[in-house]
């Protein structure tokens, strides 16, 4: 593979795969990553927030020393590339404006919940009368638009518990532990974006349609939960139990820890090469992972001693050269400074009114030609009200003032 195609983004002006596509985003946290990706691909995403601001605007972390609706770094990261308007989408008075917005849209992304209802949405007849038939509706909800749990409330924390991913995570003597952030919701958001792109691809043949993504289904489709239970009537894993054969795991070196994966036969040979083929581990029967598992208590001390005097990155490079999947064990702060993450361009500087210049995670992948483009920072609260409601939808500034006064926008 030559350098030109090793994934470095091309420097030419990026194409916009979704240029000309309009997305109206009526979700909260659950749809934030879904619509960010559509925006990154070039779509014009209009994020509709409640007049008091999206709840994510008050979610930490904030930039040190900055207060107010623009201070949330989470909001700034998840809503880059979008425009923003305010509208109380839960009340019937919003229906005319929702309808006008939807009339300009190719994709409408929604997440009706009991806590944040959506005007014109009826759980018993899950459809949105104000969306034209030719548009693609993406509904992203914790449990889906049908079924006995459809209206249950959730958060990323609770979804992780419900979805089967949490039970085996934690110390053996402690509670199950949730993964930080909103990873499962973002994962379902990826499915929402895939479905939206597929529906746009098929639209000339199929017309508009509704995509019903359930976080719960996305979660339970992973890790063979359903297949394994059906096949074995089992699948319960003990909390804290590791996976893989020895020496898979974490080993302390002079200046940090190295994590090793030894899942295939040749990984053991690579592990030995990394350690200069030490005599203490040369017994041929150790090639058998089951033998290694049996003998491991005795080997642990030997390996720990061989590793303790070595430097992590030296072993890492030697291990990788020998074909051993391994990594230095880093803190998050070490990761964000690491040359590999930096060279992939995972973080970009953005300057946003009310926040200043900050570095945020942004790019989901590299490509040639470059398909993802950063065009604008996340919107300030109501930043595009005039642009959208007056300039584009043709209302007067007086109308906009009246809606402001009544709390509609």
């Amino acid at each position, binding site marked *: 593979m030559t350098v030109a195609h090793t994934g470095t983004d091309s420097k030419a002006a990026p194409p916009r*795969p979704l240029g000309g596509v309009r997305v109206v985003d009526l979700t909260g946290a659950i749809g934030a990553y879904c619509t960010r990706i559509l925006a990154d691909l070039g779509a014009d995403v209009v994020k509709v927030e409640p007049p008091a601001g999206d709840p994510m605007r008050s979610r930490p972390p904030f930039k040190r020393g900055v207060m107010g609706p623009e201070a949330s770094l989470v909001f700034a990261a998840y809503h880059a590339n979008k425009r923003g308007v305010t509208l109380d989408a839960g009340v019937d008075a919003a229906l005319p404006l929702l309808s006008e917005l939807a009339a300009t849209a190719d994709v409408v992304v929604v997440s009706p919940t*009991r806590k944040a209802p959506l005007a014109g949405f009826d759980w018993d007849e899950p459809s949105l009368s104000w969306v034209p038939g030719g548009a693609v509706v993406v509904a992203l909800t914790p449990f889906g638009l049908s079924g006995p749990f459809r209206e249950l409330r959730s958060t990323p924390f609770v979804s992780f518990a419900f979805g089967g991913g*949490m039970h085996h995570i934690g110390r053996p003597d402690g509670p199950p532990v949730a993964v930080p952030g909103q*990873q499962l919701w973002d994962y379902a958001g990826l499915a929402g974006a895939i479905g939206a792109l597929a529906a746009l691809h098929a639209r000339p043949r199929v017309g508009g349609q509704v995509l019903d993504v359930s976080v719960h289904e996305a979660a339970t489709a992973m890790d063979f939960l359903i297949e394994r239970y059906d096949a074995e009537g089992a699948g319960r894993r003990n909390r804290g139990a590791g996976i893989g054969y020895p020496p898979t795991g974490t080993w302390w070196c002079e200046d940090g820890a190295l994590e090793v994966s030894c899942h295939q036969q040749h990984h053991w040979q690579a592990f030995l090469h990394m350690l200069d083929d030490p005599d203490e581990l040369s017994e041929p029967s150790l090639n058998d992972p089951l033998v290694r598992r049996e003998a491991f208590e005795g080997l642990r001390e030997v390996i720990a001693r061989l590793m303790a005097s070595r430097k992590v990155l030296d072993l890492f490079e030697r291990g990788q050269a020998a074909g051993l999947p*391994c990594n230095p064990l880093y803190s998050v702060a070490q990761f964000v400074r690491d040359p590999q993450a930096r060279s992939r361009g995972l*973080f970009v500087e953005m300057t946003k009114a009310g926040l200043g210049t900050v570095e945020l995670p942004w790019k*989901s*992948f590299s490509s040639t030609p470059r398909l993802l483009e950063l065009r604008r920072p996340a919107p300030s609260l109501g930043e595009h009200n005039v642009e959208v409601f007056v300039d584009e939808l043709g209302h007067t500034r007086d109308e906009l003032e009246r809606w402001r006064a009544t709390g509609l926008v």
Partner: protein
Amino acid sequence: MSDQPQALEGLRVLSFGAFVAGNTAGLLLAELGAEVVKIEARERPEVLRTPAYAIGPAVTEPSGAPQTVMYGTLSRGTKSLSIDLRKEAARPVFRALAREADVVIENFAGPTLTRWGCGFEDLSAHNPRLVWLSLSGYGRDGPWANYLAYATNISGYMGLTSLWGHAHGTFPDYVTGTTGALAVLGALAEVARTGQGAYLDVAQIDAMAQLMTPVLLDPLVNGREAAGGENVVPGSWLAGVYPALGRDAWVAVELEDAEDWSVLCRVLGCPELEAGPRAPTADHRGRLDAALASWVAERTAHTAAHLLQKAGLAAGPVQEPEDVWRDPQLWARGFPVRLLNPDYGPLHYPGSVLRLNRSPGRIRGSGPRLGQHTHAILRDWIGASEADLASLSASGAIFQAPGEPTVEDEGTR
């Protein structure tokens, strides 16, 4: 249901994708109606076929190829072409197939295909619309280009393991494969506009950095470590996992705001713990936490979660695989689909998450037998003659499993 259109009908995908990430990308495209052809050499079947990855008994196909449930589920809805690119005679055949393909997927450890004259540049020269999806751990460029990683290595490198105290076993693989499918669809939109294909370099660290956004922000912007702690949710009023009646049974509860706090005080019958509009102090939170813990301890996990949900709160049982299997929500929506695998029998698999109402995602069958569709694809895609097939088979360049391909669509939603 099978007469409904599919969103990606007519799209042709050649996939070398292996393990969870590589298979997931192809699986999603297959659900959407693409013809996804999974490529394996007979001498080197995908590692997930080997007994080390068996769920239930390891079985053998009539050809002698190994087969496992893990392979069958990760390649469901795809076709199998067995061609061995280590053999010179196989390479022009693959290049001819790639001229007919829209997408190639690979997650080789390095530039293996380029060495065989079957890399992106070789193929796109004859098919400029080709979209090439390359999945890897650390990426295809940078100082660690092509370095090896499993999901746990990615979790450890990115700081998630240190912060969380645990490693993601496979989640980064699913996220990466899914991000790969997304990148393919984005690239196809560009192909439709301009006719220009793309090389997509999707690394696990790219895909996961996005999902780790909330924990990357403090280190990136404020120069301090991410806030950690077991079951701490920054910004929430209360979050916890509480032991319920029974052995190893738990309930997860999160209060998002003042209204939730007040509702829980009413449910627990503790008006003295009401807080008002301002977030409570640590001590105040500790007292509600203790009251909730005592309340949950007297109930089963499902009952406690049910009562809290009835009151309007976000709460759920910490489900283990048995709970997931019995989950009424999954069955009510017809999510588990039953498919017949000729080698290990009928089994339920997850259905498609991509529920488009007019072109629904579908699971068209469990994973194929190794080489099940070799002859059919070579005939159909590049018009191979019987003589071609015979000579390629004789040289070991291709392999056709004995027997006719089994019917597709044995199980659908």
